[in-house]
């Protein structure tokens, strides 16, 4: 589970690498990475957020979506 999520995130990070390098938010990326390092509890939050949502968070500068509630 952990490894699968890591690979998926790696994929989306690679996909989003071409984005413009602007002001660095001091912790948003780091907060998301914490989920991956948080064992089962972190994976549960990733699942709750939903893969699409989690992916969008990493790609958010490209795709500005309206706020949606986390998948229940």
């Amino acid at each position, binding site marked *: 589970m952990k490894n699968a999520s890591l690979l998926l995130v*790696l994929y989306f990070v690679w996909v989003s690498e071409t984005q413009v390098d602007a002001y*660095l938010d001091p912790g948003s*990326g780091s907060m998301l990475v914490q989920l991956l*390092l*948080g064992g089962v509890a972190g994976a549960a939050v990733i699942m709750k957020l939903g893969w699409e949502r989690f992916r969008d968070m990493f790609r958010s500068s490209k795709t500005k979506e309206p706020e949606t509630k986390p998948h229940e």
Partner: protein
Amino acid sequence: MSDIALEPGSFRDRTARVFYHDGKIFRGLNDTALKEWQALSATGFYSRFTTSGGIIPTEQRALSSIPFSPSDPPWAAVLEHEKLPFVSYPYEWSFEMLRDAALLQLDLVIAALEEGIGLKDASAYNLQWKGASPVFVDVASFYKRTEGEPWVGYRQFCQMFLYPLLVQAYRDVPFQPWMRGNIDGMDAEVCLNMLSGRDYLRGGVLAHVYLQAKAQKAYNSTTRDVRADLSKAGFDKRIIKANAVRLRALIAGLEWKPKQSTWSDYLKCGHYDASDAAQKRDFVGDVAASRAWNLAWDIGCNVGVFSRIIAQRATSVVAMDLDYQAIDKLYLALKAEGVTNILPLILNVTDPSPNLGWRNLERKRITERGQPDLVLALALIHHVVIGGNIPMAEFVQWLRDLGGELVIEFVTRQDPMVVTLLRNKDDHYADYDEQVFERELASRFTIAKRQPLGSGTRIMYHARPISTSAS
């Protein structure tokens, strides 16, 4: 007029500030910080860590006991901290020291979490040393966390502890110049650039370095409130704990395998005549025993033979050397022996720690952190004058400016070490001469004792500073 001096490096956290009064160290708290302090001081982990030495002993004092002036901030409460013998910074610590400081920081994160307390930052400057034991000094870092919050200090922990340790362990790149060069530590991107492709397979690199660097970059222009999103999705403390526990194991398992260092086998390699070494120990021992000392510096301490002699009579000793490995070895030995009054630090005397940070006042230069009353400069002068190209007179003046008594060893031109140092250089060191040295010394100090060592190429001096009108 208030005789309260604000600590110029204590400004980032607006809820509290360190200040000095009457030779003591205090921390003013505003209303918010006072509530956090009350919550913290009621916890079990705070008592445990304070008792074991992991958190600085702290007492709340009556506001009325401090003669505040109207221009001082209106604090809600004041804490007094135990005063440490000498303040030091991460760029003066060895690998093993930064590792132990990191482990203490993580232990605090984990223990605090169990009692609903978080840490709002993870700065390596929040740790200091009592001898060879790390101690956490910024009690205003603790706050009562609300469930759903991520670990706020994670990124800073990586920048100030993890990345510096990783580059030294994996790449043999000393972290100290990087830490001295950037008050915020090392960025994920910089760390990543220093690692090689095969390092990606090593512990911590893929997630903490690579992913974090890329996530920070990818996320730089988002309009989302990630913190709120994560809180809604149920980010809980088990995530922080799992991360901190894994970081702890990673850091505890790191190994730095340096190539042979210049000095750490210096004594073993027989640069010293055995009888010279014994005479030197006796000479230093006699000076040490001549009176009580408050703070002694041993500059160029190597593995600390003479620091230990002085430490028998000095309240505290700062043992300094430019060699990373020598300081690492000394630190590990002191830690194993439980020596509590010798602080080992990395320092290059020809390029000592400067004033750094905001207004150049945030971190103090080494000479502003407490005046030594005794200075050892043994087997050092040839490295400074010939190796470091520092003029003899300037070096002696620098020693005089330190203000303490001096034990110095002059190494003559006939000594094999001096011959080696001069072998590949043009000899433009006319001032590197016994007579010049004695003249420069005698113009600033009273020479209390002079003793040539048995080898005939080294001379020991005990000198007391001559008072000047300015001092």
